[in-house]
């Protein structure tokens, strides 16, 4: 906790994938393929909408054994095969969690050994949002806790 205190409230996850960059980008942006990997554990995604272009919308229904919720947002940048930026919202995930928007940036860089995928998830709250929600995110947190 001490070490995170001086960091902005954002999250970085990175992974080397042994596949060409264009192939990885296609897996991120093709409806039939995103369902193969998005989510984790027993949580499976069903694509309701996926318009991969700047300003286009997406909506995924996330299904687990004990419940369902939606992840939806708008693509802000679609720069094949290097960069993808989109907003990230929840629906049916509890009154506090619904309506809270965060932002995801995915960057792909080409290496000899494959493709480096870097995910930045940021904007967990802004000052304006501070007073908007009276309750915590515990309901959604609980439901996600059962999924991961």
């Amino acid at each position, binding site marked *: *906790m001490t070490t995170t*205190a001086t960091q902005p409230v954002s999250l970085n996850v990175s992974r080397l*994938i042994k596949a060409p960059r264009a192939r990885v980008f*296609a*897996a991120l942006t093709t409806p039939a393929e995103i369902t193969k*990997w998005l989510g984790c554990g027993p949580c499976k995604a069903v694509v309701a909408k996926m318009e991969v272009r700047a300003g286009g919308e997406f909506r995924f229904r996330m299904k687990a054994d004990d419940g369902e919720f939606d992840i939806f947002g708008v693509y802000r940048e679609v720069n094949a095969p290097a960069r993808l930026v989109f907003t990230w919202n929840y629906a049916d995930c509890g009154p506090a969690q619904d309506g809270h928007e965060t932002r995801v940036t995915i960057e792909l860089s080409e290496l000899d050994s494959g493709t480096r995928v870097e995910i930045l998830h940021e904007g967990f709250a802004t000052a304006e949002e*501070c007073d908007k929600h009276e309750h*915590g*995110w515990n309901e959604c*947190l609980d439901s996600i806790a059962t999924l991961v």
Partner: protein
Amino acid sequence: MVNYPTVSLDATFAALADPTRRRILESLSQQQRRVKELAKPFAMSLPAVSKHLRVLEKAGLLKRRRMGREHHIELEPAPMRNAMLWIEHYRKFWEGSLDALADYLEKNNEFSKPHQTRKRKKGPKK
């Protein structure tokens, strides 16, 4: 007293969104401090620092104890732990997803195959 159950994670994240406030918390993570001590490293007035302290207090991130005329400020770690827990869930989500993505792409062994973005829809079966 701060009523913790009503303090939202949003308030925590909003409080943490400011670099000055993060440095204040960092300083408090070592030991409790007086307001004057907290203000010292910053090129800002006491009232400006007090304003940051009020935001942190409202978010339940610190406790204030009055000793005579002096205010002693102490870190309250619970809300931050909740916030970090939440971020940890996102981390697991993305790490799990990237593991699955790697499995999917590496299993299909298309590294050497040139790929073009296709519009063609595939059936749901693997």
